[in-house]
């Protein structure tokens, strides 16, 4: 069942998705995290962030819109309060890093990368770049390159995962920019921009006006992005992909792996049902046994065209 994300070995391909599983402690009360392949934390920013005004989430048909605003305790409290708990996890931990400027990303990345228990960093490049008028870092290939290069230089030894945004014309371009700038692994992808309107009040439902859509509603969209990034960028350069977007079951996870994902992230499904995490691990194992496939890694990109 094991797979490799660069130098990091996961006991199985199933990981948590950033932002949906807290800092591990919250979820550990409901599910044994030791059975997962890896854990990805909520985004950490340099300063604490209160987050957006409520309402912060809205269920939509087969989906979940969110506009949380990266509410988090900030780097200092993360290091002090959350890391000791993450150190007790027996599985590889990736810390998701966010920022408003390149300098903020670099500062957080530099300090987090020094923690021995951290297997790697995941850069959330969907954040607005305040120095560029709030356009998201991840939508513009030169900005992706600048950010990834800066973090790469600051943390030359760290496993660097770059979480791409799906809100671009061609994700292959931003994927290539990230890899050329030094990304070791790509996460494909993040939430799709969306909104909901209260027609009685004629107001946006979300306090943040628009938000990101996750859940099974986006699964076919995310699956296509994994397929495209794998074929256009990742396969030839041997860059592993963490595929995510609406995965609810082992069958969904296998689809992502066939499309080219080495590992999969489960987010929204775990919010609704923590037990789906071990169930997906078990389901992949059963699929491999049933089909007589010796290793989970054999599924990666095995789509027949």
């Amino acid at each position, binding site marked *: 069942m094991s797979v490799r994300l660069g130098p990091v070995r996961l006991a199985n391909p199933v990981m948590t998705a950033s932002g949906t599983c807290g800092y591990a402690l919250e979820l550990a009360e409901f599910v044994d995290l030791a059975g997962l392949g890896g854990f990805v934390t909520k985004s950490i920013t340099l300063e604490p962030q209160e987050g957006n005004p409520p309402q912060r989430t809205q269920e939509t048909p087969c989906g*979940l819109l969110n506009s949380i605003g990266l509410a988090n305790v900030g780097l200092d409290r993360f290091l002090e309060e959350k890391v000791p708990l993450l150190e007790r996890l027996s599985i590889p931990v990736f810390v998701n890093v966010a920022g408003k400027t390149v300098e903020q990303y670099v500062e957080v990345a530099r300090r987090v990368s020094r923690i021995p228990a951290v297997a790697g960093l995941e850069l959330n490049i969907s954040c607005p770049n305040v120095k560029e008028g709030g356009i998201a870092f991840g939508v513009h290939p030169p900005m992706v390159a600048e950010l990834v290069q800066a973090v790469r230089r600051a943390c030359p030894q760290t496993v660097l995962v770059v979480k791409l945004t799906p809100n671009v014309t061609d994700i292959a371009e931003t994927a290539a920019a990230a890899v050329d700038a030094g990304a070791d692994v790509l996460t494909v992808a993040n939430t799709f921009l969306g909104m909901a309107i209260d027609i009685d009040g004629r107001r946006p439902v979300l306090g943040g006006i628009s938000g990101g859509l996750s859940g099974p509603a986006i699964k076919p969209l995310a699956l296509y992005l994994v397929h495209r990034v794998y074929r256009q960028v990742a396969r030839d350069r041997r860059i592993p992909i963490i595929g995510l977007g609406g995965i609810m*079951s082992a069958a969904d996870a296998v689809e992502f792996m066939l499309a080219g994902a080495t590992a999969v992230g489960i987010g929204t499904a775990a919010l609704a049902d*923590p037990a789906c995490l071990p169930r997906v691990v078990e389901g992949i194992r059963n699929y491999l046994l049933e089909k007589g496939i010796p290793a989970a890694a054999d599924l990666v990109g095995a789509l027949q065209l």
Partner: protein
Amino acid sequence: MTISPGQSQETPRRGQFQGRIAGADRFGDKLRSLTVALTGAGAAAFRQARPGQFVQLSCRDLHDGRCASPLLRRPLSIAGIHQEGPNPAASDPSAPTGTKPTQRAPGDESVWVEFLFRVQGPGTGWLSRRALDEPLDLLGPLGNGFRLPTGRDRRAILIGGGVGLPPMFFLADVLSRAGQTDIVAFAGARTVSQFVGTLCLDRCEPASTLMPLGLLEQFNRCGVGCVLATDDGSRGFAGSVVEAVEEFLAGQPKPARTDLYACGPKGMLRAVARLAERRDLACQVCMEAYMACGIGLCQSCVVPVRSADAGAADAPHYKLVCSQGPVFDARTICWD
């Protein structure tokens, strides 16, 4: 002083459990009750549940990966924790009258958790179609629950509005079992058909609309009288439940200490908080917020708060209803 060490402010154990539906009743057009039987670790966790705590009930088949709607669980307050199963006669009109409650087999450590809810959308609609003995997946008990001070010459005023009434039933039960005698409940609804509880209106007609009587079965069974208030005046006090509380308090000698416990819509809670402030009464409010996970993962269900003791310089910040609430000291909530 708290009721027992097991019910201190520590969060009790919780988890994801599979229960079985042991009772499913409908009353009125849109109101339903569900009683879920839990065994083993689930029973142990829920035996320690506190009034004000809630569960997240799954409203779809979690084992079918293609079944994705409704995606999220629905939070429901615990309306009661029972050591005995529901009376089958209550769920089955054809059962002979006087049927005894489900008897506990020796060694059976089951606990029955009661919920009352209004059918409002696809999630509660799915719940309303469950039949006896079907499985139900729940996370809980969640949240902090009410702190329960006890003592002599202490009055508890329980105020429930709309779908905020069920946790008050659980609270009345726990307070009365703890030996508190001075408990008065106030139940508010828009109109008489909307009370989220079993009305016993034929029992008596009050001389005064503010006289606490056995008008709601769920309060009745723990010996707590209640005052009904309807916005349209169709039964009981005509006006808001908070106005009823205010008039009631005005006509009563003040005990050494009065504790207000409230759950309901935000406007009602704000009015309760203001009343508590005017009369200098302790007040705990059980808040509602749009919730996704219910266990502190998603950071959705925030309410703005400030510390109760600090001055105006204390900047408001957010707290999570699901894990830092849902019960808050009313003075800490930023109501505007």
